[in-house]
Every structure is written in structure tokens, then in C-alpha cells.
């Protein structure tokens, strides 16, 4: 019987939510790694019982956890993330050079076909890879070393590599996104990289053709059409139809185009979802109404989805890695909030219910569709 497993990372541990294909009743296990921040947890497409989680704390740094049984038990793996060679410097907030310093793993992206290979996006921004199931991690230095790295600056949340997308068709193609440097593409399995930010316009960057410096919040791709990318930028929702070569704005009739997550319906490549947030200063929904916006036209025309979501006095945020979709026939949409709710729609966003209501602030949500 089909079902789903939802991996929820929070400020104080990880939770695993499971349900059958109806997605109405939920079993919740956790907290796993209680008291630690879990920025992200994700399962391997090659084996759904192989899970990886990024566990960290200000006291004791980074731990990588791995489960081989779908989250019932976990084992700590290697946690040494050393930048390749002499790390050099990036720009600090005041424009001065600042040494590259590892802070934490923001995002783990397991390989599409090898359960022991995982990519890790870290703060300060860099890309690492393990090929031994998490025992050891090695940087792919071409990203930081391609030339613009010394000009990258942190955003308010730190200089994090938060998005890693593996192209399911062009197997050597990868995308990453960094706040606040922008989007990058590799066509040789991560060895070399180039910025792909043409068309992005960012307040605070005087040069309209700036190669880097854009605060990309999230990029999403539908696996059937990997040349089409959707982006939630600091401000602006953007789209590329040529694998990032150029971008154009699709914010359309959104009430605000500031936000963090963006995702694509599992079966409709032109149906996309965002959660508008009031502004960069006001990290909560406009008018105290939590609304997911859906476009069925690949952008520009958006409709609010409100059924089951709080429509008054709601002042939560939804972080960039805290939205996910399942691939059941009626596509499920999931997102978590800084208020500790995990909302689920089992009808592609038409209606919502809280699968969990009182968790710690949610940092990430990933869904696995189980057969």
C-alpha cells in the first residue's frame, strides 16, 4: 500500500511523520537528536530507507546522521568539512575580506542513483560530497574557486549554499544557489561552475548585469523538464526556460513577491507554489493570513490557497527548505512554519490540514513517497 514519510527538521530536533496514501492520519516520531538544530534531512532516491540528516548546534558544531532503516535508528557519520587547500577569503558585510569558515550543513542532496553519494551545501558557502555513505566529505572546490568567490557576501542568515539540484536527464549537470551570491551551474558533475544569474535584478546591486551578489532563496525544477527552473529570490519570483542562461520575472499578481520556498507539482510541470511573505523586514504573511499561492500557468497568474490555513493573526514564516511535494496520484503539498506547524494538502493545495501543530520552529520538510 502506498504511503508517505515526511522528514521534518526543526530548531530542536528532527521528526518523522508517516501516513498512508490518504494522508489524513499521521504518526509522529521524534524528536530525533533532541535539542539540536536539524537544518535538513533527506532520503536517497536509490533506497528510501537510507536517510541523511544534518544535525548541528552552536555548542558542538556539525554532526551528520544516517539511517538505514527509514529513520527508526540513526548512526553518526563523519563530520569533518575542511575546505580544499587554502580557503582564502570572501567579503564580509562591511566589504572587507573575511576568511572562509565552516559553520554548518544547510542542505543534503543524495545522488539520484547511488545511495552512498550525497552532496552537502554548507555555510560558509561551499559544496561537499561523500561517496562512502557519509563517512568522509570532500569539497568540490571548483564552485568557490571559479573566480567570483572572493566577492561573495553573506545574507542576513549567513553565507549559505542552500539549494542543490541534480539534473535527471543531463547527468553531469547540477545547479546550486547561494545567499547572497546567486545561482550557479556545472555541466561536468561539479568540477567547474559558472554563475547563471542573467536577468536577475536585485535592489541594492547597482550594476544591472552583476554576475554575482543576488540573494537567491530557492530554486525548483520538475524532473520531466529540467531545462525549466523556477526561483524564489529575495524579492521576485523568476523563471528560466534555458537551464539558467536567462531569467524572467513571473511574480504577476502575487500580493508580494518576497518569500523563501518554491516548489513544483509532481505531475504538472507548470503548476508551481510559493508562500508570499510581507517583506524582507516583516518575515510573516501579509495581513496575518497564511496563504499558499499556486500558478497553473508556470507563473504570472496566481491564485491564493487558503482552505484550512489560518486567515487571521498568523505571523509565522516558511523557510526555504520547508516545502516539499509527494508523487502520489493526487499530488500532496507540504510545508512547515516557524510556528511549528506542518501543513499538508492531499489535493494539490485546494485544502490543507495540520499534520503537526506544536513542533519547534520548522527548518526543513522533505517528503518521501513510499510504494
Amino acid at each position, binding site marked *: 500500500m502506498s504511503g508517505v514519510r515526511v522528514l521534518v527538521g526543526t530548531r530542536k530536533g528532527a521528526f518523522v511523520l508517516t501516513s498512508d496514501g490518504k494522508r489524513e492520519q499521521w504518526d509522529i516520531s521524534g524528536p530525533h537528536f533532541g*535539542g*539540536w538544530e536539524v537544518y535538513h534531512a533527506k532520503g536517497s532516491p536509490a533506497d528510501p530507507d537510507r536517510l541523511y540528516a544534518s544535525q548541528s*548546534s552552536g555548542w*558542538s*558544531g556539525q554532526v551528520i546522521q544516517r539511517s538505514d532503516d527509514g529513520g527508526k535508528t540513526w548512526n*553518526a557519520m563523519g*563530520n569533518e568539512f575542511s575546505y580544499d587547500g587554502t580557503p582564502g577569503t570572501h567579503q564580509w558585510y562591511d566589504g572587507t575580506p573575511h576568511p572562509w569558515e565552516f559553520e554548518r550543513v544547510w542542505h543534503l542532496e543524495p545522488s539520484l542513483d547511488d545511495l552512498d553519494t550525497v552532496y552537502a551545501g554548507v555555510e560558509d558557502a561551499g559544496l561537499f560530497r561523500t561517496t562512502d555513505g557519509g563517512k568522509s566529505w570532500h569539497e568540490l572546490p571548483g564552485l568557490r574557486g571559479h573566480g567570483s568567490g572572493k566577492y561573495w557576501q553573506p545574507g542576513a542568515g549567513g553565507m549559505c549554499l542552500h539549494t542543490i539540484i541534480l539534473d535527471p536527464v543531463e547527468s553531469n549537470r547540477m545547479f546550486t544557489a547561494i545567499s547572497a551570491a546567486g545561482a550557479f551551474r556545472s555541466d561536468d558533475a561539479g568540477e567547474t561552475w559558472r554563475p547563471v544569474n542573467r536577468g536577475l535584478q536585485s535592489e541594492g546591486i547597482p550594476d544591472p548585469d552583476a554576475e554575482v551578489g543576488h540573494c537567491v532563496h530557492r530554486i525548483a525544477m520538475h524532473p520531466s523538464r529540467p531545462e525549466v527552473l523556477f526561483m524564489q529570490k529575495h524579492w521576485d519570483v523568476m523563471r528560466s526556460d534555458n537551464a539558467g542562461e536567462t531569467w524572467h520575472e513571473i511574480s504577476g499578481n502575487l500580493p508580494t513577491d518576497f518569500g523563501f520556498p518554491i516548489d513544483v507539482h509532481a505531475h504538472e510541470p507548470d503548476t508551481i507554489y510559493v508562500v508570499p511573505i510581507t517583506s524582507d523586514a516583516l518575515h510573516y504573511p501579509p495581513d496575518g493570513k497564511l496563504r499558499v499561492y499556486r500558478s497553473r500557468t508556470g507563473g504570472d497568474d496566481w491564485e491564493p490557497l487558503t482552505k484550512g490555513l489560518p486567515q487571521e493573526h498568523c505571523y509565522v514564516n516558511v523557510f526555504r527548505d520547508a516545502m516539499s511535494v509527494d508523487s502520489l496520484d493526487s499530488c500532496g503539498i507540504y510545508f512547515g512554519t516557524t510556528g511549528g506547524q506542518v501543513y499538508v494538502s492531499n489535493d494539490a493545495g485546494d485544502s490543507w490540514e495540520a499534520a503537526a501543530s506544536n513542533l519547534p520552529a520548522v527548518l526543513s520538510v522533505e517528503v518521501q513517497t513510499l510504494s
Partner: protein
Amino acid sequence: MIRVVLPSHLRVLAHIDGEVQLSIDGAVTQRSVLDALEVRYPVLQGTIRDHSTKLRRPFIRFFACEEDLSHEQPDLPLPERVASGAEPYLIVGAMAGG
């Protein structure tokens, strides 16, 4: 035997129940105790000291015999009462919010 007390979050991480007891060959220093601790529990590598520099993480402190040893040189001998096992060597998570 050297007695080491870890903060609760590291005891959970390393599956440690209560104090750790370590046998140290040679001088009993902060470095030798932490080296032995990380050999016994590899999962603690990087959680107390930096992997490469071996410097104390900023929000970890080292106490013993009612003294804060966090800023002492790592190769200085620990107090005799720690070396004899009369007093534990305390690894403490600093009070730092969260």
C-alpha cells in the same frame, strides 16, 4: 583513572551513561585527556575541539576543581586531584542561549 563528565547533549550523541573513565599513559593534560576521549568515542571528534586546529569550540568550557581551565595551555598538567581521579574533569556547554 581519569573521570570525565560531558554535557548531556554529548552524552546522548555518544551513547554515554554517566561519567567516562579514561586511562592515560604519560602526562595528564587537557590535550591528553581529550585525545583519549576522542579515541574512545570518535563521534565526539569535532564537537569539543576543532578537527584540525584542536582549539576548543567557542561555547565549550573546561572546568576542574572549581577552576575554569578553558584558557589554560592544553599541555599543562591537570590538577593532581583530577589526575588521581578524586575530582572529575568537566566539559561544559557554555550558557549561551538557545
